[in-house]
Structures are given as structure tokens and as C-alpha cells.
């Protein structure tokens, strides 16, 4: 099935006992898109993401990520995507270089390739002076930028970013988003969740989950027109308040 969709989801559902965390969601994401996946705490975002990245089995429905079925080829999905979250990104007690080498190894890169990538990343991020320092000693903003680069070390088709900029200073936040734009421009699809509504505006399309369902999915511009407001924060408030 050749099409331009790198993520295709149909009726995807996850139940925990009687409780339906994700209720038959359906959507698709195109190659090179920056797709914002939003929702209030408890709406089902994290549960949905876990199914898409192959670490949680759906209860029912269908989903294809990077060309692989989430039910039958979860391991292949893990190899083809990048993932970065606020809660876990890099090992604090390894140095910058050691982290790059470690993750490069996990993704199956050759030693030569790891060396090349290491030099490129360190130079692009301006980390020459701290390359042999423990990541735990770096400011949060530097860690986030490094995490993002490391999550893409194997040139994945899709990168999943779970609230990547929480608590980071405003300048670094924007530098981070410039990195996202650059990656998308080069054809990487970016699937990002965030609680910063100004960041929602940077996305090509945004979906908003409420109580396990997708209640809105469109470009930021169309969503603002639909809800008759001039910013994404107000779209969110109108929708999530019911």
C-alpha cells in the first residue's frame, strides 16, 4: 500500500479493564509533517503514543507506523523511529560522547558511522567544550537539544517527541523548534506533544484528545477559525472545557 502516510491509525482502542483510555481514534500523518498531538492530562495522549511507538499492545483497531503494523511488527517500529521524552532522554552519568556512542550502538550504527555522527552532532550543537563532561552536569536546554539529536542519530523516518521543551528557557525553546523545522524540512516526520500552546502554532496540523477521543484535528489556522478565537490556547480551553 503505497501512500504518503507514515502513520495510519484506524479505530485504535486501549482498554484497562472497564476503563477506555483510548476510544477508537482514527487519523493519519503524512511524511515530513509536523504533527501536534495535544490533550489535557488524562485525555489518553500518552497511552495512544505508547501504542504507536510499539511499547503497548492495543486492545483493538489498526495502526501502521513507518510501514509496520503495531500488532505484529512492534520491534521493527522501534528500530525505525526516534523517541525523546522529558522524563527519559539521556544517561546522566555518561558523558556527551558516551551517550552518543551508546545510542548509536543500540540503533545498530557501525563504529565508523558513530564516529562520524558524533563529530557532526557535537559540532552542530556547539558542545566541543563539554563533549567529555557528564550529561547530568549540563543545563537542561543543552540536554534537550542533545537528546533530540541523539533520537535522530539513525536517521529515522519519524521522531516522537513527548513534551520535549517543558521548563526550558524561552530562547532554547525556540532553538529547539528551529531544529524541529530543519528536520521536517529534510523529510523527517515529527510527532510532538506539548503543553505550550504557542508551540501548537508551529505544527502543520494539530489533534486534540478529550476523554480518549480525538475531538479536533486540523491546521492551527482552521481550528482558530472553527472556534472563533485568535490563538491555540483559547481553542484548547473551549474544547477541553466541553
Amino acid at each position, binding site marked *: 500500500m503505497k501512500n504518503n502516510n507514515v502513520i495510519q491509525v484506524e479505530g485504535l482502542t486501549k482498554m484497562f479493564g472497564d476503563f477506555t483510555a483510548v476510544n477508537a481514534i482514527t487519523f493519519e500523518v503524512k511524511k515530513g509533517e509536523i504533527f501536534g498531538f495535544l490533550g489535557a492530562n488524562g485525555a489518553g495522549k500518552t497511552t495512544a503514543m505508547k501504542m504507536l511507538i510499539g511499547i503497548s499492545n492495543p486492545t483493538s483497531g489498526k495502526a501502521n507506523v513507518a510501514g509496520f503494523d503495531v500488532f505484529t511488527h512492534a520491534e521493527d517500529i522501534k528500530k525505525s523511529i526516534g523517541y525523546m521524552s522529558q522524563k527519559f532522554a539521556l544517561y546522566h552519568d555518561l558523558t556527551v560522547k558516551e551517550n552518543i556512542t551508546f545510542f548509536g550502538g543500540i540503533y545498530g550504527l557501525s563504529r565508523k558511522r558513530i564516529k562520524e555522527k558524533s563529530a557532526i552532532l557535537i559540532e552542530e550543537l556547539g558542545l566541543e567544550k563539554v563533549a567529555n563532561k557528564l550529561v547530568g552536569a549540563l543545563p537542561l536546554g543543552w540536554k534537550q537539544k542533545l537528546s533530540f539529536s541523539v533520537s535522530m542519530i539513525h536517521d529515522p523516518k519519524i521522531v516522537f517527541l513527548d513534551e520535549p521543551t*517543558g521548563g526550558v528557557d524561552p530562547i532554547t525553546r525556540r532553538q529547539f523548534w*528551529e531544529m524541529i*523545522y530543519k528536520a521536517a524540512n529534510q523529510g523527517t516526520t515529527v510527532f510532538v506533544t506539548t503543553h505550550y500552546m504557542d508551540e501548537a502554532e*508551529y505544527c502543520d496540523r494539530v489533534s486534540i484528545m478529550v476523554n480518549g477521543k480525538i475531538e479536533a484535528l486540523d491546521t492551527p489556522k482552521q481550528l482558530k477559525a472553527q472556534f472563533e478565537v485568535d490563538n491555540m490556547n483559547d481553542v484548547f480551553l473551549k474544547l477541553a472545557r466541553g
Partner: protein
Amino acid sequence: MSIHISNISKSYKNVKALQDISFDVNAGELFGLIGPDGAGKTTLFRILTTLLIANEGTATVAGFNVVSDYKNIRNSVGYMPGKFSLYQDLTVEENLEFFATIFGTTIEENYELIKDIYVQIEPFKARRAGKLSGGMKQKLALCCALIHKPKVLFLDEPTTGVDPVSRKEFWDMLKRLQQKNITILVSTPYMDEAALCDRIALIQDGKILEIDTPEAIVKHYPKPIYNVSANNMYQLINSLNAYKHNHSVYPFGEFVHYTDNRTDFNPEDLKVYLESKNLSNINIDKTVATIEDTFMELAK
């Protein structure tokens, strides 16, 4: 009751977490400490709530010295630390009873103070705290910090990681608490929340950049700011970054906030330049500075 901070400094080995910090918080004020991760907010809170001793300087909270009178402070402040710090395997109700008991009071005694907040989580009172959503955890933590009717409330990044709806509700609650004469010192990395405070201190890398009302801080922004938009955000950012006269280029949602180096800046020149970069649908309009603009300018 108020907070008085005088020349406080604190270092952890080589890292200067706080450098010569001085400011006051007036009784009944809603005061915001605004700054990103690593700015020193948590360190300052720990010093003020008597959990950490400064290397230099003095501070008083509600008239008590943070070092010599620490016990008095611990009885009269409420503290909500950055991470969720309640007992995950106790229920909502059990957590509240626990904190009431250790402060020598009961839930009933000060229920009026927490009622507005508690009614929102009361339906879940038998649920273990660890199983609550982020927004609900914040509400419970706030109740536990208020249960003994503190004179001063310290809230360390209470809304980080919480969705915009819960954030808004949380700040509505703070405004109502302020009317009950509680002094509130709250830290946040969200610049839009700064606008909701009576006064704010912008902090970065252990130093205070500026202290004033949100309105006054924004008025101090030194240059005219323009909202620039075009058909392609990424190309727009790149083009503006390459423009030799730029002073600052920062994306803000659907626009880019642009300031120019020249005092005689004419937006038409910029428009012509952007058109030469094959951008279309170009709009350049003057706009007003926000706290975030001011923060980034001061932090440069």
C-alpha cells in the same frame, strides 16, 4: 506577613546557584519568580522554607529568621515543591488527613480555605494519589499545603507539565486564595503566568534580571517589536536570521517577533528583502512586547 531577602548567595561546589539575591515580598502579595530550569528558583525556595542554608546573606519569612527561627517558619508556611511529593499509595483523603494531623489540626478546622479546590477532587477521594492525573495531583498538593492555614504559601513550579486548562484553573484558585490574605510566592517557567502576578522577579543563572509589576517590566522593553508572518514559517525564520540588520528574531506562535538594529528602521525595506527571498503573504505589523520578549532581551 512578608518575606525579606537580603544578599542571599548559595553555591554547590563550582556552581553558583544564587548570586547576591535581595528583594521583599509584601504581605498578601501574589509574587512570581519567573525563570527557566536552572535559574535558582528551587534553591531559593528551599532556603526560604528552611530546608537549605545559604552561604551568605539573611532572610526572614513572616518575621522569623530562616536560620535561627526555623521552627516557627515550618509551622506557618505551606510548601508545594516542584515534583509531586505526596504519598502515592495513600488515597486523596488519607493524604489530607495525614498532613492535617502532623500540623496539629483537622480537615474540618480549615475546610473553608480548601473547599473550592477540594470539591474538584472529592469525587476521587478514595483513589490513591499515585493514580491521579497531573492536574488533580496539583490540586491535592495545594490542599495539603493549605490545610493548616499558613500565612505564607510557597509554590515551586506548580503548573509545570500540566495542561493549559488545569493551569488556568490553578491560577484562578491562587487569585481566590490571595483574597483570603495569604502571601503567595510562586515560581514558574511559563511567562504568560507572570502576567497574573502582582509583581515578578525575572531570574536566570542565579541572578535577578529585573523586579517590578508585569506592566512596568513590559514597558521597559527597549525597542519597537514587529509581528512578521509569511507563507512559510521555516523560510521566514531563516531569512530573518540572515538579514544583516536584525537585532532579535524569535518565533511566537503564528508570527515571528522581530526587532531591528537601526533606529530609523522602515518595515518596507524588510518586506522587499523577504520578497527577494521568495516569500509571499508577508505581513509586518507593530506589536507590544510581552514578558517573554523582555525576558529574552534581558537574558541575552
